[in-house]
Structures are given as C-alpha cells and as structure tokens.
C-alpha cells in the first residue's frame, strides 16, 4: 500500500553500451547547430548595444520621470510624500509657491540621485497626484562622473514614457 516501485535504468545491454545514447545526444546538438548555421536569426541572442531588448514589460521600474498636467506644467505639488517614503533618501525637493493659480505649490528643485536609488518604486506608490512614475523603461544609465547621476527637475520632466505603457 502506497509503495511506488521506481524502475531502475541502466541494466539492459542497450543502455550499457552507452554509444547509442551518445549518438542520440550528438543528434540533438547537431540539429541545433544546423538550425542556427542555416539562419543565424534563429538565435535568440540580442546584439545588445545595436539591438535593444524588446521584452521590457510595462511594469518594469526604470529611471523615474515627472509627469505633466494638460497644460504641460509640472504635476508635482511638492508635498514631500515621495521623499518621506524613500528608503534610500535619494529624493531632494525644494518647494516654491505656485504663481499661476493652477495649484498652491510646485517644486523649484526636484532631484533624484540614481546612485543612491534602489528602484523600489516607493515614491511612485506614495505620490498622491500621480506626479512621479517609473515607466520610462530606461534600464541603462552611464555617466562620466558622480554629479551627473543626480537627475534634476528638467531632466526628469523630459523623460518620455515607454511605448506600450500609459
């Protein structure tokens, strides 16, 4: 009752000869080789800098961006929720009064230090007015010195959302 007999392999002459199994293995590798030799586009490898990955999903957390209102002004109201939520403390905001009557406050400076950022998405979760998002799909950011990694307000505003997300 309840005992399962597992069949043992490797005792028959065919299995002990090994050579048949080796021929089987050789056939598998050769079929792969011929398939790829005939047409190298069968290979899934991406030739990276020239060919960018196409499988970044809309939920991928890339470099941040600041969203805009209908009239192309900054949506952020400088409430400091994101900076408070940030576990890496990499968001630096300076608020000023908003003069155009659209809202009460706006950030005069809004910078994110990408070297500190852990890309947890906490700022996006915390934002009450959907002003910060991480849907740019930018996964590679290379700069020449440390200061350049601190993205300022205008850079963050200039980032575009990735195609296919909204």
């Amino acid at each position, binding site marked *: 009752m309840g005992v399962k007999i597992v069949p043992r392999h490797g005792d028959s002459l065919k299995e002990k000869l090994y050579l048949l199994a080796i021929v089987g293995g050789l056939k598998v*590798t050769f079929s*792969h080789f011929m398939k*790829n030799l005939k047409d190298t*586009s069968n290979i899934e490898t991406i*030739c990276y800098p020239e*060919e960018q990955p196409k499988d970044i999903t809309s939920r991928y957390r890339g470099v941040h961006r600041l969203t805009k209102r209908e009239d192309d002004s900054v949506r952020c109201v400088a409430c400091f929720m994101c900076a408070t939520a940030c576990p890496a403390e990499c968001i630096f905001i300076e608020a000023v009064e908003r003069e155009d009557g659209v809202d009460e406050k706006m950030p005069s400076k809004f910078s994110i230090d990408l070297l500190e950022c852990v890309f947890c998405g906490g700022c996006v979760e915390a934002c009450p007015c959907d002003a910060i998002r991480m849907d740019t799909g930018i996964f590679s950011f290379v700069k020449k010195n440390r200061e350049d990694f601190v993205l300022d307000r205008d850079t963050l505003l200039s980032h575009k959302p990735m195609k296919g997300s909204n």
Partner: protein
Amino acid sequence: MNSTLVSIVIFNIVMALIVSLVFVPVLVWMERRVAGFMQDRLGPNRCNIAGVRLGGLVQSFADMLKLVFKEDYRAGAVKEKMLFTLSPVIVFATAYLSFMAIPFADDLVIDDKSYIMQALPMEFGMLWILAFAGLGIYGLMLGGWASNNKYSLLGGIRAAAQVVSYEAVMGLSIVSMLIVYGSIHMGDMVRFQGNLVWGFIPAWGIIVQPVAAILFIITAFAETNRAPFDIAEGESEIVGGFHTEYSAMRFGLFFVGEYIAMGVASALIVTLFLGGYQIPWLNTEVLKNNITTIFAVLIVTIPILSYMFAGWIKKNNVWLDKNDARNRETKWLITGIVIINIIIILFLGIFLLFGIGENGVNISVAALQVMTFVVKLLMMNFFFIWVRWTLARFRYDQLQNLAWKVLLPIAIANVFITGTFVVMLGV
C-alpha cells in the same frame, strides 16, 4: 639536392605548419562558434579589423595577441623554475612533432622519381607517432609538479593516470590495425584504404576494423585530455588542473599544444580509419586516369557551391547598425569569392584545353588529395568539438573503469580475433 626535392620538402613542412599551427586559431574559433550554435548562442562575432570579421575568426587573433602581451607571472612558491618553463614547451613540441609523420598525399612521382608527401619523409611513421604521443604527457606531469600547488599536482597526477590507462588500449587498437595493414608506414596504410571491399565499399579502416576504430577514437579523446575525459583540467574540482599556476604565453603554449594535439589525434584517426587523403572510390590510379573528367566536374561544381556559399553569407553576415564598417564585409567577401572562382576556372580551363604533362597530372592529383585530407581533418576536428559540447565529463572512477574493465578486454579480444582471421585467410 635538386630543386624539385627542395620544393617538395618545403611544401610538406609548410603544410605541416599550416595544419598544426595555423589551424589553432581556426580551431579555437570553430570551438567557440560551434559551441555557441549548439547552445543556441552566437559566439564571438564582434571583433573586426576595418570591418572584416570573417565570422568571428579575428577574435582568435585578438586572444592570442592578448596572451602574448600579458604579464608572465610566476608565483614565488615555484622552485623548479626550469621544469616550470620547460613543461609547456614539451607539450607544444611533442604535439607539433607528431604531425611530421602524417601523409598529406600519395607519393608524388616527378620525372620518374618518387617523393614521400610527409613533413619528414620516413617509413616508420607509426612508431614516431607512438613515441611522441607518450612523451606529451611528461609536459603535463612536470607542469603539475613544478607548480608547487596541490591543485596543479592533482591535475598532473590525473592526467598521468588517465593517459597511462588509455595508452594501453590505444596501443592495442593500433596493433590490430597494424595486423590488417601489415605495415608501419603511414603511406602504405592509406594506400591500402584506397582499395575496395567486395568491389564496392572503400576499404577504410573504420569499415575493415570498426571495433578498433571506436576504441581508437575513444582513447584519442582521452589522450588529448578533451571532454568527456578532461578531468585533468576539471575546473569544477581542481581550479585549472595542471595549468592553474600558468599565465600569459606559458599558458598559451599549453593551450596551443592542446589544440595541436587535437589536430594530431584527428589526423591520426583520418589516416588510420577514414582513408587519409583518399577520395572514396577514387584512388590515385583512378584519379590519374580520369583527371580531365574531374577537372570538368570541378569547373561545374565549384561555381555552384560558391554561389550557395555567397547566398549564405548575404543572408547571415549582417550587422544591425547600417553605417557600421562591418556591413561592408559581405561585399568584399563575395568579390573575393568571385575572383577566386574566376582564377580557378581559368586555370582548370587552360589545363583542360591544352592538357598537362604527366608531372602536371601527378601534381594536380596530389593537390586534390591534400585538399581532401584537409577537409577530412577539419571534419574530424569538428567531431571532436561536437562531442565536447554534447557529453558531460566522466567521473574519475568511471574513467578508470571504462579503460581497464571495458575497453582493454575488448581491445585484447579484437587483437586475437583479427590475428586469427588474418592467419586463417592467409592474407
């Protein structure tokens, strides 16, 4: 010393250099590209000189250049400095010297004088190869011991034990081949394989002696320390085995020596079992008698094959960045192929129209046979690479069991059966 003899000797030595040293970058490239394709990867394909990539072959030269210019570091713990330096040289030199006894073509007859088409024109080829095949292992042993490192020593010991075990089997499988061929001269062996069995099967070693062929191929893998018998290097267990302490060109010599050893093993298998330079069903006499027909066939087939090859290049040799220099390569390659085709067809056409003397016939037959040998050698090398990227490494006890309990009895039985047959049939 006449000029014919000198030019033939020079040709043979250059040939030996090409199939051993010049083939090494090609083999490294083949290994990496074939491995890539078998695992659905691309392999090295970016390296280029002014846009010429040759399918990634340039990468091998870059790697070699890197090895030459790297710091040649020797650990302070290495006390046997002389042996430490000598061992890669031994590995390299023995592997390279083994190539000297491989015939590239049938004896070339010029002005009624016969010349042996080997780098060293000698008639005891098999003994020469056996002598040097056994010597190469000293390099690994000395290197492993002189490194003064436990992992290196383990690698050296493993290599020694493995080669000693498999050398016995290899020797016995060669004995059965010697009984069949009745000669130790490599040229005689290949000439024997130009005959036909029962009038329609080429009498290649693999058909006359299939068991010896399988044994020899298995032991050749073990002799060259290649997968599935590469426990001497055993990265997962003993770092790098015997070459753990080596760097720069000292390591490079081990590396090159290993690939030359693979080439030698392939050349031996081709010579002993796959008909050497013989084109199946077309031995030297047949080739000499039908040389005009063969030229005509070549004139038709070479352009067709080149056309197919050019189509393949056009389809596969593309670079995504349209402005990159690498995209110009396809045009150059196809122009090169067209020029080569025109030259070959021109020459063959002249030969066909005006005829060539007896010397010309002999030389063109030799050229055809050299090309056949090189093609067979490359195919055998491909087989080595193919097996490496298919099979997993043996465990040490499995390896020794296979040698002593399985292969050795089969080899001895094969020698007895072969001997009995030869005596009974009175061949």
